[in-house]
């Protein structure tokens, strides 16, 4: 009887794994089929106004790029503080608050930046969108920096101090170097996450049909446009949305896999 229960349980477990894989396969298959069928290289050459996706892809990368320029240094230094300098209560508090912010609803962040930047500035802007993405990125980078640094053995730090190095030198020359791979992976994964975000951009940078490098106005976004296109009645818009979804997913998966590849190689 016990063996039967055991067998059933194991079967259920394997079944669950298959369900999980099935969903992944289903979604990817859908993306590939629908996306590929609407895909043609001119999508990379034309902007949305001409039925292409160029401005959206470039725009999304620029937004994510600026967000990273803001978010990575802030996140890393804060993570360093928590792990290396912080003592006791305050560091723990910041760590907890960062975890809370990591799960904060992305649309709420969008609303916050809307009130903070869009209203005073009198309109949507690429800057606001990038800031919203940065706010989402910071807690993730903090978390990954903190975790990776905590894995570095205590003795390594002590050995540096024992040679007469000052604390920040030990952190930069030795500790961060030792945690380098893990931190890089974490940052890449964070980047992959924000490049796929839609909600924070909806009312901060919106999107644009035209190619633009002007961050002071509505800025083209692949994700926001997918949302708009999918809501349009025309079949052609929906097809374009699928092609865009396909490209977005490929981008995100490549960045994600690159991150994992780096970790695996360095082991």
């Amino acid at each position: 009887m016990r063996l039967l229960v055991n067998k059933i349980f194991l079967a259920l477990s394997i079944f669950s794994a298959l369900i999980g894989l099935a969903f992944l396969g289903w979604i990817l298959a859908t993306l590939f089929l629908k996306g590929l069928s609407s895909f043609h290289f001119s999508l990379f050459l034309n902007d949305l106004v001409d039925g292409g996706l160029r401005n959206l892809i470039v725009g999304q990368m620029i937004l994510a790029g600026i967000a990273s320029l803001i978010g990575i240094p802030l996140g890393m230094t804060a993570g360093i503080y928590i792990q290396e300098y912080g003592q006791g209560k305050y560091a723990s508090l910041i760590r907890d608050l960062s975890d809370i912010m990591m799960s904060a609803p992305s649309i709420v962040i969008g609303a916050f930046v809307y009130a903070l930047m869009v209203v005073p500035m009198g309109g949507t802007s690429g800057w606001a969108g990038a800031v919203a993405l940065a706010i989402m990125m910071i807690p993730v980078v903090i978390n990954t920096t903190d975790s990776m640094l905590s894995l570095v053995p205590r003795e390594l730090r002590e050995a540096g101090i024992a040679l007469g190095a000052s604390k920040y030198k030990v952190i930069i020359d030795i500790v961060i170097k030792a945690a380098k791979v893990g931190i890089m992976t974490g940052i890449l994964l964070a980047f992959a996450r924000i490049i796929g975000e839609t909600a924070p951009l909806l009312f901060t940078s919106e999107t644009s049909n035209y190619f633009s490098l002007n961050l002071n106005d509505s800025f083209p976004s692949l994700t926001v446009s997918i949302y708009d296109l999918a809501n349009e009645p025309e079949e052609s818009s929906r097809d374009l949305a699928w092609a865009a979804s396909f490209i977005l997913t490929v981008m995100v998966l490549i960045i994600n896999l690159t991150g994992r590849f780096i970790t695996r190689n360095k082991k």
Partner: protein
Amino acid sequence: MSVMNIKKFSFTYPGVDHPSLKSITLPIEKNKITALIGPSGCGKSTLLRSMNRIHDLYPGNKYDGKIELLNEETGKFENILEIKKENEFIKLRQKVGMIFQKPTPFPMSIFDNVAYGLRIAGIKNKTELKDRVETALKGSALWKEVHDRLDKSAMGLSGGQQQRLCIARAVAVKPEVLLFDEPTSALDPISTGAIEELIVELKNDVSIAIVTHNMQQASRISDYTAFMYLGDLIEYDKTENIFLNPKEKQTEDYITGRFG
């Protein structure tokens, strides 16, 4: 002639109400090897780590008494427990180096590892760096094995080699005192033998304090031995006296293996 004098030194870890070291008085003799032995928890590592004040990485410690280090230039003894400023800590650690139980190679090349202490001391001249790295590696009996791959990562070395690298790294800055915290307990017997030989040779240039739970090691290589138990210094004497003719019963019991 001593290079360090520990006088009535007491130490309490943060958040603990009883001291881990109770009024220890002990000299570290110049160009000699002093071994600290005793059962687990006796405080020998705590004492060793006080000699380069590495405890101060973790705030909240309380201490009493004095630890005096000879200033080679003035010939006077200075109490290192009074050090508060960052740059004085740095100077202290350049004079009193430490090797840990687990080999701790930095994530950089072999050359950069050995040169690290020199670089942070401000030495930039490439020739000088090369010379001092070579001297240090030769002095650690590692040169022959690594001289042709100095730019390779230190992580690729074996455990015994890594520990010798750490010794070379510490020796390169020409300290006055070297502290060894159970340096061979993580190594195989052959590497252990090599490192013991190395330590004996090093005493010509530096004064050495070594913590070990291996009594045979202490009797093999040290000139003086201090036996500690539960935070007290039970007996300190020349090594042959401790092992052949201990004065205290507790010492004798430990040496003969009745406890610990």
